[in-house]
């Protein structure tokens, strides 16, 4: 174990040196100071309880399910106050209802026009919404609200029941609408 860690450290240092020669300026070379190894091991259960990231390949999506109809009802009681009826017109930004899309003088940035992944909608709703009571929705409710928001944007039909399988079948209209500047720069620097 110790040797493995040393190896990793050496690897990390060589990576750093590689980066350093490209990025860092002459008076800004950082070394990796050795730490006192005080970290406490986390159990698999502890990690699982805290891990709420949902990736665009579906990793992190939990068990559970919710329907468009259930989502509509949750939306009426918990979301409408800020986001308005039909995802438009409240104090928060529009979620749906775009008619013109992203080009032109008044681009309409909504879930349907802009968001590239449905997984993001699940991740964000679960971790941050509703703003006045974040963390209060259970996984079934988050699936339901996600389903309703996709329905409002015309992406899924009314009968959908969303779960970790059906969510991954959803293709967002703007999935190819992004240019990854970081990757572009990396390619250029190669």
């Amino acid at each position, binding site marked *: 174990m110790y040797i493995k860690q040393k190896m990793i450290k050496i690897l990390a240092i060589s990576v750093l040196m590689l980066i350093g020669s490209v990025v860092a300026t002459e008076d800004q070379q950082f070394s990796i100071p050795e730490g006192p190894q005080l970290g406490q091991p986390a159990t698999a259960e502890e990690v699982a309880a805290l891990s709420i990231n949902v990736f665009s390949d579906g990793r992190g999506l939990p068990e559970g399910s919710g329907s468009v109809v259930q989502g509509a009802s949750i939306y009426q009681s918990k979301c409408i106050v800020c986001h308005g009826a039909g995802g438009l017109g409240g104090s928060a930004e529009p979620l749906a209802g775009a008619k013109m899309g992203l080009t032109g003088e008044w681009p309409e940035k909504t879930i349907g026009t802009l968001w590239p992944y449905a997984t993001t909608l699940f991740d964000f709703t679960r971790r941050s919404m509703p703003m006045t009571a974040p963390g209060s929705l259970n996984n079934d409710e988050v699936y339901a609200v996600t389903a309703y928001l996709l329905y409002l944007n015309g992406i899924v039909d009314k009968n959908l029941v969303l779960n970790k399988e059906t969510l991954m079948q959803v293709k967002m209209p703007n999935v190819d609408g992004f240019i990854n500047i*970081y990757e572009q720069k990396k390619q250029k620097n190669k």
Partner: protein
Amino acid sequence: MSKKKNTNKLPNSLKPVAGNGLLDRRLFLQKGLTFTALTTAATVAPSVIAKASEGSEKQAEIDPIRPPWMRQPGKPFSFYGVPSPYEDKVVRLPSANSVLQGNGASWSPLHQLEGTITPNGLHFERHHNGVPQIDPEHHKLLIHGLVEKELFFSIDDLMRYPRRSQTCFIECGGNSNSSWNKNASKSPLGYSHGLVSCSNWTGIPLSTLLSEVGVRKKARWLIAEGADAFAMNMSIPLEKAMDDAMLALFQNGERLRPENGYPMRLLVPGWEGVLNVKWVRRIELSDQPVMARNETSKYTELLPSGKSRMFTLEMDAKSLITSPVSSTFIPEPGLFQITGLAWSGRGKVKKVEVSADNGETWAEAALDGPIIPKAFTRFRMPWRWDGKPAYLKSRVTDETGYVQPERDELVANRGRHGYFHYNAIMTLAVEEDGFVTHVYKAEDDKNSGNLGIDADW
């Protein structure tokens, strides 16, 4: 303005170095010349005037030979110092969601500050759902995912780790966003460009902690998460984390303020503010970014084509004139110091040029040293205003050769709906009566200042 005094009796050696009265930057090294500091005249003046008029009778009674504060003992010592009551107008400007007051930003008053270090209480704020009041005894950092050992680090433990100090700016990706609008904002500088601040940060190199958990070969990204009500998550490339990122515990010598991430935050030098995750409690190592809301539908820049730039990450070079200030008066013709701030997410500021004739001619400004990579650099330029219309601009070039663009160029490349990453040259028009106003172009109508937002918020 009637009081155009003859204040221009300057030594003959002071020949202009560029149009409309820009003088040699070495002027300030010469002795025996008196300068009017524009910052004082133009921005501190309103509060001083207010104080003076409130107590104008009292003022008359103050004995200039032995003023009252020399006739009685002063105040006792204090546990924690605060600014003079005469400086109570030097404040951040919060602009938040009316329904959720912790969702928004507060702007740093750059136009009222000097030097390069932002006082902790005036550092800009951007919160998505308020400032959590975290008890450090109940706050731990978990590092997990593609690592050899998944570990928790308590604050007490982290306090024993080797530290490094680094002075660097943090700029919100949405700073200066009103400049995408059709009409130029007339607010004082900081209240339209002050989502940027610069501090001396102290913390633990992330590389130290990552070495301890043992990063697996497949890992490429860190996904950091804050312990605020938003539980905000953001993806950061592993290369950057291993290069110069840190887990910051101290800001300008004291523990972080709650609004800056107490008890700990990430510091990702030179990159978008939102990546400097405050109140950080969890870092997941992954082979891919998480595609969080704040790296897909926000903090991405929509182009005229309908495509959006994502993972722009690095902040481009920018410079701003902090004095004189838009919507204030230059008191009279004469000798002044134009000053401002420049910075670049790529490294050091190489030079700052100033123009007083709308970019026809430029002269290199003096830079206060030392020049620190990815940190504020203060520039200064002597200027003799002759009382005629002038157009002031500043333009930074960084050590990579990147030159700050004109607004026309930036808008031609990006359109007006990108919202983030606005870094164009700013133009200040000085009118004959001394009124200073922010314009996009010299020919803009000075009264066109419709403050409504039209560039998509």
